[in-house]
């Protein structure tokens, strides 16, 4: 009886944890647990997808991210909170440790509440800068919602991202849709490769401090304007942990999920906030964009032996790698984004071959990419290396080390197959024949002109 129960429990646990590849324990940090009502739909959607959502305020006593060195939560969601610092349990240091331990963080900011110093420091650690005074509203006098912010212009209505950058998976792209960003905080990104802006502010938008710059925007105190301002950005650390900054927490609230908005001089339309929020949360909590390497195989062409430890220079070798991608609740074959390539490097210190892997076939949950090539004419210790690092996709770094030996003395091509050697071989033949003929004549020739 107990065994049946435990099996059932294990199955249930497996079904629940199937939601995300990196666990389902989500901690929502907000000012007052009652505030979660405002985000009912969004959080309900997360629960329905299988997340175990816990709610804490920064002040709560028992809040800790680590227990005995292990993470107690898999994901963190920061909703705006009025406290200046988030307390001793959520110091920037702890949060960085959390990311280093493969935890994912979604930071939602709002211009109505100054960002807490812990989050500002965490973000500056990631090269994401917020306005100095911790509060800044993004306004755009050309792209605002005429229904809700006709006077203050602080509800931005933007086209949903349609092409973020070539060669990326279209996880966040909702062509034709509009997004509403109420009371958004803009941020500025550093130039690191781990950061990717998802939604940038339009060219005419700018950030200002409503408390100090309500009347006049001092020319020297402009934080950022135009496309330099990002509203939603993602960061994927080297360990594939994810941090997302959402400039407007209010866009997750029920009233904005499918609110009616109207652009200046345009008709009122429904926003795509709900779908966008689902994708942003799903990506951050590793429900989409997660890659898995199922197997790596390499072998000598014409040989049955898999993954041998040694090859010879100039061997013809085939390499295949099987990749799966996690999409919400199941593994599917990984299809490369448009305009992108999966590449194999055959390297010793630096790559000597970098080859494009081609799709060789797919199974129900895996795609097999492969390439055949001739090893370089240099012996040494080489690596088959697939280093597939892309924004939005977890890092794939597969390194298989093999020795490459040089030719054995009896593996070189024989001189008779080298056409350039034929005159020399003929020369040896001529010498041998001449020698035998000379011996015969020397021994058996009869002197000329002498009678026997």
């Amino acid at each position, binding site marked *: 009886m107990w065994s049946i129960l435990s099996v059932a429990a294990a199955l249930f646990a497996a079904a629940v944890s199937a939601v995300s590849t990196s666990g389902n324990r989500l901690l929502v940090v907000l000012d007052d647990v009652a505030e979660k009502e405002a985000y009912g739909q969004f959080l309900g959607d997360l629960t329905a997808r299988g997340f175990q959502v816990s709610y804490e305020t920064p002040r709560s006593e028992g809040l800790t991210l680590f227990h005995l060195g292990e993470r107690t939560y898999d994901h963190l969601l920061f909703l705006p909170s009025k406290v200046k610092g988030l307390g001793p349990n959520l110091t920037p240091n702890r949060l960085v440790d959390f990311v280093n331990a493969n935890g994912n963080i979604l930071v939602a900011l709002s211009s109505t509440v100054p960002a807490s110093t812990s989050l500002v420091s965490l973000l500056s650690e990631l090269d994401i800068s917020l306005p100095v005074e911790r509060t800044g509203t993004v306004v755009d*006098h*050309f792209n605002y919602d*005429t*229904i809700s912010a*006709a*006077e*203050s*212009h602080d509800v931005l209505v933007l086209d949903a991202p349609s092409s973020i*950058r070539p060669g990326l998976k279209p996880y966040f792209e909702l062509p034709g849709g509009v997004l509403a960003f109420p009371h958004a905080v803009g941020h500025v990104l550093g130039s*690191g*490769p781990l950061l990717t802006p998802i939604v940038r502010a339009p060219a*005419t938008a*700018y950030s*200002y401090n409503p408390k100090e710059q309500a009347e*006049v*925007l*001092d*020319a020297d105190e*402009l934080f950022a*304007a*135009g*496309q330099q301002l990002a509203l939603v950005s993602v960061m994927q650390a080297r360990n594939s942990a994810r941090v997302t900054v959402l400039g407007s927490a209010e866009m997750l609230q029920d009233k904005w999920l499918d609110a009616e908005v109207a652009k*200046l*001089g345009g008709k009122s339309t429904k926003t795509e906030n709900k779908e966008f929020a689902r994708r942003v949360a799903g990506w951050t909590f590793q429900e989409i964009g997660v890659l898995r390497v199922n197997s790596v195989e390499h072998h000598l062409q014409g040989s049955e032996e898999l993954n041998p430890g040694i090859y010879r220079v100039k061997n013809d070798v085939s390499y295949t790698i099987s990749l799966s991608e996690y999409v919400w609740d199941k593994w599917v074959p990984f299809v490369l984004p448009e305009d*992108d*390539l999966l*590449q194999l490097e055959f390297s010793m210190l630096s790559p*000597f*071959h*970098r*080859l*494009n892997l081609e799709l060789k076939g797919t199974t129900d949950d895996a795609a097999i990419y492969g390439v055949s090539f001739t090893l*370089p*004419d*240099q012996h040494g210790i080489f690596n088959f290396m697939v280093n597939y*690092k*892309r924004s939005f996709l977890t890092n794939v770094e597969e390194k298989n080390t093999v020795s490459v030996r040089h030719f054995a003395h009896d593996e070189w091509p024989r001189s008779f197959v080298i*056409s*350039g050697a*034929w*005159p020399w071989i*003929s*020369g040896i033949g*001529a010498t*041998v*024949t*001449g*020698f*035998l*003929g000379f*011996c*015969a*004549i020397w*021994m*058996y*020739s*009869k*002197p*000329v002109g*002498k009678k026997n």
Partner: protein
Amino acid sequence: MRFSVASTLLALASIASAASSWTFSDGTVQVTSKAGNDAVAKFSADDRVQNTLTLGHQDKLKVTLTTKEGSKAKRPHQAFLVVKEASGLEAPFPLTVKESGKGTVEITQKDLPVQLLLSQEPLEASLVLGSFGSTKGSVTPVFDFTVKLDPATAVPSYEKPLRYGKLAEIHHIFRADPKNPPRIVSVAFSLAVLATIPALFIGWFAIGGNFAHVQKALSSAPISHVVFFGSIVAMEGVFFLYYTKWNLFQTLPAIGAVGVAAFLSGTKALGEVQRRRLAGER
């Protein structure tokens, strides 16, 4: 219903206010230069500066204007001079605007980002005016200017930031495979070499070489001669087998056996040859 009334009212309000929008007057752009290419040009909302201005490394570009809401001079919240490069990269320069609507901004080369300094095309400056409320904002392209860098100093360098993505293919070859001359050349030279064999024999026969004493030699020392000459041929055969498939350890005993046979038979056979020589028959 209430909603639709509200939006209708709003629409009406926006139509009513559509007449008023943010504009400017007395627009002037002035380049003060130490190198002597001063320039002053006037512009308005409908009339941009036609000729391209030049901003040298010691020059100062100054824009002055009066902002207006409708026809009344007033200060907007947003008054930016946006400098745009051909690729779409923009740098905003906020104007310092007084209550009266008089606004100024000064740009030198130091204020421009590197990417704009390096632009080959002229930079386009436009004026963005906008503020809260229902008054419409405006974006007006006002003038173009080119940046003339200081020839005495190094050109500022700009390094593209690293982005993950596909890389160029590499097919590195340490040493190219050795190449053979055309096959026909090798064949021709081989035939030329082989042609020396008949030439050699013809030459020998021409100066009197022959095999006439084979009979005599075989009759006086038949076994020795057959074995000796056979062992010479066999030695070549051993070398041929060594070239094609044998290794050294198979070859050495064979050479030993053939060598012993050659030595033993050779003493007799060559003795017979010596006797013929002493008899004056060679």
